[in-house]
Structures are given as structure tokens and as C-alpha cells.
């Protein structure tokens, strides 16, 4: 038997923007065992949410994660609205959908860039991030900020998109779609990319369900499951259909995200064309009643789970957030053993890890 070495992967590693440590046991260059160690970015946000008044928590929840911050804010508002329950005006629902999809667009562009970076395709990385900048500009134009949009309040949204902005959005989104298509063509068909991703980190359908994976990771293994299928917000009107691949390897996960990127742009364009006129917010009456509610939304990385319990005061009794990466980390314990050392970064990246999100 070859001698075994234990080497840490992370918490500081070029492919990981955030700190997670994987203690990997190698036999020569083959991985035989993995133990994840998290806890570098724990901030106690769940506890802070109990101590804060409920409208202030929106801004705290947005800071759980930088990339999906918009959807965190919206999901928090939705779960608190379910305590009353409050019915949000239809235009606000459409606006929430548009901003959610816009964050999905920029998040997937970011991830595709990082993937290219992970296997050393630097110029591809630059290209994706160049396109992403246009989407971030749109977010700044419509919401006021690039990253933490703070756009949702309990009962609706804070800003409207006027006709001029709408025209600009549609124009830029079409441009983004065209440019992404050209790059995705390279990413999906280039033989160097295929050599690094096809057949790596395979997860079967049964394994994916048993390990509780979510999001593109789950759909790449052939499970047709997406929180947007619930038809909440405006997704019910938009004829949403989840994107599924069968192979369950890194290449399938890349393809799911590529196709979701284009789908997200299409959903935005459709939502813009169907958006009804009207109010954008209603005022909640009184404090959240003593009740409990759950809400699940689809983030770029997968399903986010919000649980809220009110007690009739301005503070919440309990708020629990389960972020997508929290559910996806256990799948690494199955995918990594058996793979080669150079494939570790690509497989780890293929779950789109977001660690600060995980630890809250």
C-alpha cells in the first residue's frame, strides 16, 4: 500500500474566495478521505436577528451572502409576510422576480468565470467577468447599489422600474445574452474544458437525493426539482420549466448553469413584457403575530430555506436560514474520494461553494 499523506485544502486557496478547509488524505495522488472543517466565517446572524427589530433584519439578512444578497433580502421579507399573512401587490411580485433573476444572471456569470479560472483558462475568466459588469451596472441603475441592493421591504419593494430604465434593461440584457452565448459555445465545446470536467466528481440521482443536494447541483444529476416550480412571485405566470441534465459530473453542472444563465435572461425579458401596473408596496399592520412560517426560494446556488417564528412583538422569536451550500457540502464527502489531486479544485468549485453564507 502506498503511504498516505494528509494535506489541507484551504482555508486559503486560489480557487476558494472564501475560507473552508478540507482535510484530504491522499494515497500518492489519489484522494481517499475528506473531512470538511468550517467555522472560519461564523458571525451569529441568526442570534442577531432575534435581538433586532424585524424591519432591520432585512439589511442583516442581505449581508449573509454577497452574491445572492438580493434573494436573501426578498426571502426574509416573504417569510415574515407569511406570518400575518400579507398579500404583496402583483407589480411588486414581478419586480422581485426581475431582481432575483438579475442576481442569478450575475452570479452564474461569476461562477462560470471562476470555473474557467479553476482550470487555468484565464482569458475566459476575464471575458465572463467583463459581461457580468454590465449586469451589475443594471442593478445599480435600478436598485441603487451594485451588491447589497436593499430593495425589498416587508409588504413589497422600495423602488419601481420606470419605462426609460426598462428600455435600457431590455437592451443591455439582449446584449449580455448574445455575448454569453458566444462564450458558452466555447465553454461547452472546447476539448480542453471537456478534458477537465467530463466524468469528474460523478454523483448519481439516488446519491444526490440521499445527500440532500440542492440547486443546479441536484438538477445536474437528473432530478427535476427547483423552488421556482412552486409558482411563487411571478414564476407561475412566466411558464417556468426547470433545466435538467443527466450525467451528474462537473460538465453537467457547468451546462446546467450555462443554460440557466440564458434562461434567467429570458425570464427577465418575459417578466418585463408582462409586468402589470399598480402599487409596489403595502404597509404591514402591527407586529408579526405569534405564528410560524417557512419559505423556500431558489438562489443561484440552490434552495434557500427560511424559517421564522413570531411572538407578537417587534422582534422575532426565531429565524433560521439554511443556505444552499450547507446542503451541498456533504456531497463532497462522496464526490472527492477516488479522484486525482488536480481535479480537487474543479470538483470543489462545481458545487459553487459560498462559505460565509453557510456559516451565517
Amino acid at each position: 500500500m502506498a503511504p498516505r499523506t494528509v494535506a489541507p485544502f484551504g482555508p486559503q486557496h486560489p480557487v476558494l474566495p472564501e475560507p473552508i478547509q478540507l482535510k484530504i488524505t491522499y494515497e500518492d495522488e489519489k484522494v481517499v478521505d475528506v473531512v470538511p472543517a468550517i467555522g472560519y466565517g461564523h458571525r451569529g446572524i441568526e442570534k442577531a436577528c432575534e435581538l433586532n427589530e424585524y424591519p432591520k433584519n432585512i439589511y442583516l439578512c442581505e449581508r449573509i451572502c454577497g452574491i445572492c444578497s438580493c434573494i436573501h433580502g426578498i426571502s426574509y421579507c416573504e417569510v415574515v409576510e407569511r406570518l400575518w399573512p400579507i398579500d404583496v401587490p402583483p407589480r411588486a411580485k414581478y419586480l422581485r422576480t426581475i431582481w432575483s433573476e438579475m442576481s442569478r444572471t450575475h452570479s452564474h456569470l461569476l461562477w462560470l468565470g471562476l470555473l474557467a479560472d479553476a482550470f487555468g483558462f484565464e482569458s475566459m475568466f476575464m471575458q465572463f467577468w467583463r459581461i457580468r459588469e454590465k449586469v451589475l451596472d443594471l442593478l445599480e441603475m435600478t436598485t441603487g447599489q451594485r451588491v447589497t441592493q436593499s430593495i425589498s421591504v416587508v409588504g413589497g419593494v422600495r423602488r419601481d422600474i420606470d419605462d426609460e430604465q426598462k428600455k435600457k434593461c431590455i437592451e443591455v440584457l439582449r446584449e449580455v445574452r448574445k455575448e454569453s452565448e458566444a462564450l458558452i459555445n466555447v465553454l461547452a465545446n472546447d476539448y480542453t474544458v471537456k478534458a477537465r470536467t467530463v466524468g469528474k466528481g460523478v454523483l448519481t440521482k439516488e446519491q444526490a437525493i440521499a445527500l440532500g443536494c440542492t440547486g443546479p447541483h441536484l438538477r445536474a444529476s437528473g432530478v427535476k426539482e427547483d423552488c421556482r416550480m412552486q409558482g411563487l412571485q411571478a414564476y407561475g405566470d412566466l411558464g417556468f420549466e426547470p433545466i435538467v441534465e443527466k450525467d451528474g459530473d462537473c460538465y453537467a453542472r457547468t451546462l446546467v448553469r450555462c443554460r440557466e444563465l440564458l434562461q434567467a435572461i429570458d425570464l427577465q425579458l418575459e417578466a418585463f413584457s408582462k409586468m402589470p401596473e399598480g402599487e409596489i408596496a403595502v404597509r404591514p399592520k402591527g407586529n408579526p403575530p405569534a405564528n410560524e412560517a417557512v419559505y423556500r426560494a431558489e438562489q443561484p446556488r440552490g434552495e434557500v430555506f427560511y424559517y421564522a417564528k413570531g411572538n407578537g412583538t417587534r422582534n422575532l422569536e426565531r429565524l433560521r436560514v439554511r443556505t444552499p451550500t450547507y446542503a451541498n457540502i456533504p456531497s463532497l464527502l462522496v464526490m472527492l474520494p477516488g479522484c486525482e489531486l488536480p481535479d480537487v479544485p474543479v470538483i470543489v468549485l462545481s458545487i459553487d461553494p459560498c462559505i460565509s453564507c453557510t456559516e451565517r
Partner: protein
Amino acid sequence: MIENIKEVKKDELLAEVKKFADAKARFVTAVCNDLGDKLEVTYFFNMSPGMEMHGLRMTVGKDEEVPSTTGIFLTTVLIENEMKEMFGLKVKDIAIDFGGHMLLAQDSPVTPMLKTGAAGGKGGE
């Protein structure tokens, strides 16, 4: 109100979770609540494929031991460790036991999520 939640006893938990595993359900997450003198743990499962969610709720005393579900769903490793260190829920035989230091460090407050722990934003007092 949350739909489809079933109250279970501590001893029935594993048998009930096994039923979900046999039905090819996907484990979503568990939520722990501090009820004052007791802890309430709710396990959520998604009936795959589809978006229907079911829950199992059990109420246990703060010093009672509860069985680990990691033998059935490996993915509960993280959440059980978290409940153990945040609420002091006594889970026995977790597949990978981080020993109360998965998220918290050596000098962190102990069981900070309890209503009596780390209250008022004062930190570990």
C-alpha cells in the same frame, strides 16, 4: 402555520425518519427552538421529485439524549453538530462529531442560541 407537520416521540424518531428515507425523500434541514425549559426540534423533508415538504417535530427536555439521524441521512451531520453546539442538544453517535467546535471556537460563548445565552448583544457572558 406550517403544513404537514407530525409530532413524534424521541424513541419513534429514527423509525419515522427511516420511512422518509425509504420514500426517497430529500432531507431539507432541521430547526431547533428554545421553548424555555424544553427544546423543540423539527426535521423537514422534501418529497422528491416535486416541492412538497413534510416535517417531523419532537420536543425534548434540555438534558435528554436524542438519537442521531446521520446513520440514515449522512447530510444531517452539519445540522446536528450545529444544534449540539448552539443549543446544547445532546445528540449521541453523530457520524462525524466536531466536538462542539464546528462553528464555535475554543473561547466562544457556550450554547449562544439559547434564550439565556449571549443575550442583549453582550457576547459570551
